[in-house]
């Protein structure tokens, strides 16, 4: 009997290891020979740990599983959900980047190949760098880390930059609250990231890659390290990629708890062994990146989407989406939500559809008050903005950003002043210290919001002014975007910034 129990950190955090032990004990008691495959997560976090059993018509899902429920995997019961692929949440998605996540054994290269893996790379080794870059340009892929810069154009800059040494860096420093797509992909299908990085290397003429991951992701780091070892042993990495005679090496590096290292220039400094301080741009990392050499710095999801673009063609990928936001986006639905998890779909869904229909509303059952989109530097959207379609320009039009496509849902108990204060506090804690608007501004921001909380309405224009200064004067998105959550909270929820006078008086 063959069963799948995710090794994904979310499944583990909800008791997957205990479920595996209980399943093995139950199988032994029944005299059944049990094979347990540790897959990635299907992304339905509210059903984790989700156990799947091989059946005649496909994989049958059981969840959320507890050790006490494991007999149901053998006998059936209320935790039996039917065929996994037929679950509505999964069936309504368009899984391109995440097609294999949750399906395959993440550390089986044979499984990876059997599900379409390496087809993109096989195609790429027969193409010129320019041809690969053209395909990525045509696909319309834009940076999934948040900035939304066209990936193909960045690659072309690096390709054409003079220099003998060039680098590919995967930004896996996924520090934004509400985001976990990188983690899920690295834990559930690490070869896709590796394949994307090798293709990038072939495209721009780089022979060395780095994955810059986080110490907060120990489970992902174990999977990545092992996947790199396997890829090297099997000739996907090394002196002759797939026997092509072209070299590409890859190394995993782990950060040390600094949020700002998710910013690409701070990341490069950290990778070089320096303080994670932001660099002024220009020069662009594409021209002077790691060790001063031309460097592609891409988000994990951008790189992991390249194999499917090469495999199925750029037109296929560009066929999905809305306006200038082409392809699919892995939405990460999180926070106070009934059905949280990862949902990959073409751009264009409204926030209402995402939160109410897919997410099922709040976990608490109370009304939704706000949704923060795009991490701690993203705006809080209020219900009157919930018809905004999900796309880079559409969100920019709302003074918001999609960021890494994480959505954090808050119910009506949320105190928006407190959340605005947290945004400033977080900026103060994580500021690299290089530029004054961020380093000093965030500290003054906390103080100013505290004044407002004490009932000092005169501090409100001061906060607005401070946010303008931070936005215009900061060197990177940490100081520059912290005003988004602060100003959106202040603009859309003014009552939370005035009603506190009463509390102060109490």
């Amino acid at each position, binding site marked *: 009997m063959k069963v799948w129990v995710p090794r994904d*950190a*979310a499944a*583990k*955090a*909800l008791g997957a290891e205990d479920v595996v032990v209980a399943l093995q004990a139950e199988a032994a008691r029944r005299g059944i020979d049990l094979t347990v495959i540790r897959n990635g997560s299907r992304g339905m*976090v*509210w059903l984790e740990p989700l156990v799947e059993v091989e059946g005649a018509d496909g994989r049958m899902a059981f969840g959320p599983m507890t050790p006490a429920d494991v007999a149901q995997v053998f006998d059936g019961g209320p935790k039996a959900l039917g065929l996994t692929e037929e679950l509505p949440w999964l069936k309504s998605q368009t899984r391109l980047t995440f097609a294999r996540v949750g399906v395959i054994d993440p550390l089986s290269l044979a499984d990876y190949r059997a599900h379409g893996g390496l087809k993109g790379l096989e195609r790429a080794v027969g193409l010129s760098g320019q041809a690969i870059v053209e395909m990525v340009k045509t696909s319309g892929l834009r940076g999934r880390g948040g900035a939304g810069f066209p990936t193909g154009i960045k690659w072309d800059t690096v390709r054409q930059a003079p220099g003998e040494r060039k680098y590919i860096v995967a930004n896996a420093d*996924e*520090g*934004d*609250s*509400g*985001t*976990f797509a*990188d*983690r*899920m992909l690295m834990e559930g299908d690490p070869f896709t990231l590796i394949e994307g990085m090798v293709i990038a290397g072939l495209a721009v003429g780089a022979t060395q890659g780095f994955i810059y991951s986080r*110490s*907060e*992701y*120990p*489970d992902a780091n174990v999977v990545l390290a092992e996947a790199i070892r396997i890829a090297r042993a099997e000739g996907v990495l090394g002196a002759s990629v797939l026997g092509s005679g072209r070299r590409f090496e890859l190394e995993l*590096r*782990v*950060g*040390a*708890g*600094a*949020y700002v290292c998710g910013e690409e220039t701070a990341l490069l400094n*950290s*990778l*070089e*062994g*320096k*303080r*994670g*301080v932001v660099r002024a741009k220009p020069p662009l990392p594409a021209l002077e990146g*790691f*060790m001063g050499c031309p460097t592609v710095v891409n988000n994990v999801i951008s790189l992991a989407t390249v194999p499917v673009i090469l495999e199925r063609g750029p037109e296929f990928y560009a066929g999905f989406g809305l306006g200038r936001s082409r392809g699919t986006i892995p939405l*990460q*639905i*999180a*926070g*106070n*939500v009934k059905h*949280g*998890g*990862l949902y990959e779909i073409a751009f264009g869904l409204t926030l209402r559809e995402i939160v109410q229909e897919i997410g099922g509303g709040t*976990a608490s059952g109370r009304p939704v008050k706000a949704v923060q989109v795009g991490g*701690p530097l993203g705006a809080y959207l209020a219900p009157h903005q919930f018809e905004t379609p999900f796309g880079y320009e559409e969100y920019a039009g709302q003074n918001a950003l999609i960021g890494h496509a*994480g959505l*954090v*849902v*808050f*119910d009506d108990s*949320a105190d928006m002043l407190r*959340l605005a204060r*947290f945004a400033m506090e*977080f900026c103060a804690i994580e500021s*690299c210290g290089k530029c004054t608007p961020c380093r000093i501004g965030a500290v003054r921001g906390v103080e100013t919001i505290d004044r407002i909380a004490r009932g000092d309405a005169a501090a409100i224009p001061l906060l607005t002014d401070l946010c303008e200064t931070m936005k215009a004067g900061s060197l990177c998105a940490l100081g520059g975007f912290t005003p988004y959550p602060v100003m959106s909270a202040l603009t859309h929820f003014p009552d939370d910034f005035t009603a506190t006078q009463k509390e102060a008086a109490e």
Partner: protein
Amino acid sequence: MLDEAAISARVAEIVTAHQGMEGPLLPILHEVQAAFGHVPQAALPQIAEALRMTRAEVHGVMTFYHDFRAAPAGKHVLKLCRAEACQSMGADRVAAHAQASLGVDWHETTPDGRVTLEPVFCLGLCACAPAAMVDGRVVGRVDEARVDALIAEVR
């Protein structure tokens, strides 16, 4: 307790193992911390010399990153996520409860040396918030009862 000669010998081994690596300082500091539970002050000049950096530079890097400790932590480290997704599910309340139960504030260790309490900003468990990590093991949906159970486990 390790004496300085033992520290120096182990640090030398670690530095040697990273020879030829581009930008090896973070991997070295991680490994030194894994070996000793913190980055001993005595290790810094040695690393600086080996990497041809100034002591100030190495000190600057070591102190920039939240992960690196100048002194050992408690026997167990309990990290509670403070980020927005966890806040939306009551992380502030759970953190206050944990602080009261342990009698410590953030970054402090219980007087018996058993538990260090630390904030963390996002473990990527935002759809099963609030999240915690105990000595590298992740835990989701941490309410007051679960945090009590985690504390009981490590005390």
